[in-house]
């Protein structure tokens, strides 16, 4: 070797400095993930067209119910054929309205550097939602409380695998129902600084959600920036109801994001056929999306869908099934046809514990979403028992899986291709690359090294306490909570949020009667 670097530049400080560097190495929060893989397709262009035309025929000939006076009036005003609650829509009207939707938009966080783009070319992860129960860091399943929701939000904030906080990840069942939404929103804003899901069930809850977001982000800021998402579920078959549509309008009018999710329980509220289920789901989605643009043109929206098949033995929802994977692919193909970002359900399982069933079902759901190029992976954290429990062990496992899926989605890089080919020349037949300069330079980024999946030998694993995945994950959840650092929030903002909650609690009776 001719030019050995001078000792002054070669020395790096040995153990002390490497340890310090590794210790400080924190996986940064995922930023916008740009897809570089090509999506798989389940059907040909002709077959896709058949599904699309079937959806339009459903909307024109059968019609769809909008159980909401305001929506019916708005449809009538633009000349739609409204008979009672049933709205019959012409293809041109639907496609015309949908073309007003933005193809790409940003979600902002309280951290000005953390911006996420939602488009057909990007991938975003959000936690699960709606669990009435939690399986806590000790593995105990019980009704979830406000403190559990706060913990889940703390994990969301600390783990790098989430872009969006689920908002109502688990239910604070210890808080009076009419007051719950206030505390859920407060926790999203105080325990995290991420964009998040607000509450949508009815006008009041939606308005309170927006009002609280404005306290934290400022009304001016929210006029041109999206920070909160409203999840609007369709009532399949072919119904959008008032509760949800009220919520939808509140979010749209505040220039925030709406996610419209038709709800497929295959063979229970759709026909027992994958292609026809896609046609119905798509008809419901198109009607909802078109209505959103009718209500507030230019609204940022996501083509949603929640799809499970149904056990014909009991009626129970089943995730991870091949039919659901195929539906994902079909929805991906359809949404790309319309140019609207779309959502999948990332990590769902029906398992009662964080066991192999949970792993299998979730892995399939993840991969089918990724290969179909889904843009919002909802429920990518914690979902077991068909959504009836938020499992904290699974939550941290999913957060790590999100990093792996993000890596996969970003596809194959050619940035280092030539250097790497050089390495092949250097090593030649029979050698190994472990000590090669290129490996040394690239090993950390080139192949991801998960922390929670275990790659020890049996003896090593035994020496470390014979811990299964669930136990390792519970410990990780515990440790993460212990090291929680709250995000920065102005004292004044925090006080205003508290005052808002107090004021609304004064105005709203805690009783349901």
């Amino acid at each position: 070797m001719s030019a050995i670097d001078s000792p002054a530049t070669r020395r790096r400080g040995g153990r002390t400095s490497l340890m310090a560097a590794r210790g400080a190495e924190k996986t940064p929060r995922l930023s916008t993930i740009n897809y570089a893989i090509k999506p798989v397709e389940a059907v040909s262009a002709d077959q896709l067209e058949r599904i699309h035309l079937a959806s339009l025929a459903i909307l024109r000939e059968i019609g769809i119910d909008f159980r909401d006076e305001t929506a019916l009036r708005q449809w009538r005003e633009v000349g739609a054929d409204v008979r009672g609650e049933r709205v019959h829509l012409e293809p041109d009207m639907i496609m015309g309205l949908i073309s007003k939707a933005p193809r790409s938009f940003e979600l902002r966080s309280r951290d000005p550097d953390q911006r996420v783009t939602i488009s057909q070319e990007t991938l975003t992860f959000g936690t699960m939602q709606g669990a009435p129960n939690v399986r806590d860091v000790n593995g105990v399943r019980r009704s979830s409380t406000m403190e559990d929701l706060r913990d889940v939000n703390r994990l969301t904030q600390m783990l790098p695998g989430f872009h969006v906080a689920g908002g109502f990840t688990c239910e604070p069942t210890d808080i009076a129902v009419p007051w719950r939404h206030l505390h859920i929103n407060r926790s999203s804003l105080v325990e995290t600084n991420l964009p998040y899901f607000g509450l949508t069930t009815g006008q009041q809850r939606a308005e309170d959600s927006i009002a609280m977001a404005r306290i934290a982000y400022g009304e001016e800021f929210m006029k041109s920036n999206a920070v909160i998402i409203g999840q609007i579920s369709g009532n399949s078959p072919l119904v959008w109801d008032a509760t949800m549509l009220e919520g939808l309008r509140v979010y749209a009018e505040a220039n925030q994001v709406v996610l419209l999710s038709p709800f497929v329980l295959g063979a229970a509220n759709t026909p027992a056929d994958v292609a026809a289920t896609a046609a119905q789901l798509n008809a419901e989605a198109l009607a909802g999306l078109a209505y959103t643009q009718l209500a507030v043109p230019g609204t940022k929206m996501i083509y949603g869908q929640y799809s499970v098949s149904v056990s014909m033995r009991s009626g129970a929802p089943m995730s991870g099934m091949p039919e659901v994977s195929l539906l994902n692919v079909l929805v991906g193909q359809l949404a790309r046809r319309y140019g609207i970002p779309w959502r999948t359900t990332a990590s769902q399982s029906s398992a009662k514990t964080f066991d192999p069933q949970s792993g299998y079902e979730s892995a399939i759901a993840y991969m089918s979403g990724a290969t179909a190029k889904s843009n919002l992976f909802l429920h990518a954290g914690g979902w077991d028992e068909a959504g009836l429990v938020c499992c904290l062990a699974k939550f941290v496992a999913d957060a790590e899986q999100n990093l792996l899926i993000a890596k996969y989605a970003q596809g194959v890089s050619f940035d280092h291709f030539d250097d790497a080919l050089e390495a092949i020349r250097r090593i030649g037949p029979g050698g190994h690359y472990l000590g090669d300069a290129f490996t040394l330079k690239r090993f950390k980024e080139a192949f991801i090294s998960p922390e929670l999946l275990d790659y020890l030998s049996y003896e090593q694993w035994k020496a470390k306490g014979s811990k299964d995945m669930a136990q390792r994950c519970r410990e990780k959840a515990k440790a993460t909570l212990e090291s929680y650092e709250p995000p920065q929030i102005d004292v004044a903002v925090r006080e205003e949020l508290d005052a808002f909650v107090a004021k609304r609690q004064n105005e709203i009776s805690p009783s349901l009667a």
Partner: protein
Amino acid sequence: MSDEQIFLSELSDDELVQQMHDDLYDGLKEEIEEGTHILLERGWAPYKVLTEALVEGMRIVGEDFRDGILFVPEVLLSANAMKAGMFILRPLLAATGAPKQGKMVIGTVKGDIHDIGKNLVGMMMEGAGFDVIDLGINNAVEKYMAALEEHQPDIIGMSALLTTTMPYMKVVIDTMKEKGIRDDYVVLVGGAPLNEEFGKAVGADAYCRDAAVAVETAKDFMKRRHNTRSDR
């Protein structure tokens, strides 16, 4: 499955009842109607037809559904066949003053539109011979009260799938207490996020985890009711 043609009218009573159990199992509506008529023509009391041919047949269906042998669409067919038989028997039962299987009012509570589970329970209950009045979704306490008054059921069933709507069950039960009518009815509650403990806490008679348990529980309560209230 056999290819040979069976003429129900040529069967002995025992054979016919056996055949009707099979026909119910296979969800054959017309065959059940025919069998019901034949037994009546042979002088069977309507109540005997109901219990021995229909209810017993549906008990077998219910068991095999519970054990995962029969599938939901098949059970619905059976329930439909049962209903057809009931349709013939109902006026006769009323006329002869036969003991009733029982009547149930069922609906999802205020704020809740999840109705798949409730529908399944309603259909299984009908299949077991109960008269079911379905109040649909999103029922306020006033609607339950009006239905109790109008239909005088034995059982009131409430369904909720949301933790935000579950507590409303207590509102309904408390109102029944206030009116002094709580003990006149059996209150059954269900829905995925509920549990036994919750059922007790709101003051229901029972929580049922699924439709099969709902039927068994309802039958159980009806037995006890018949013992204590011979007027019904």
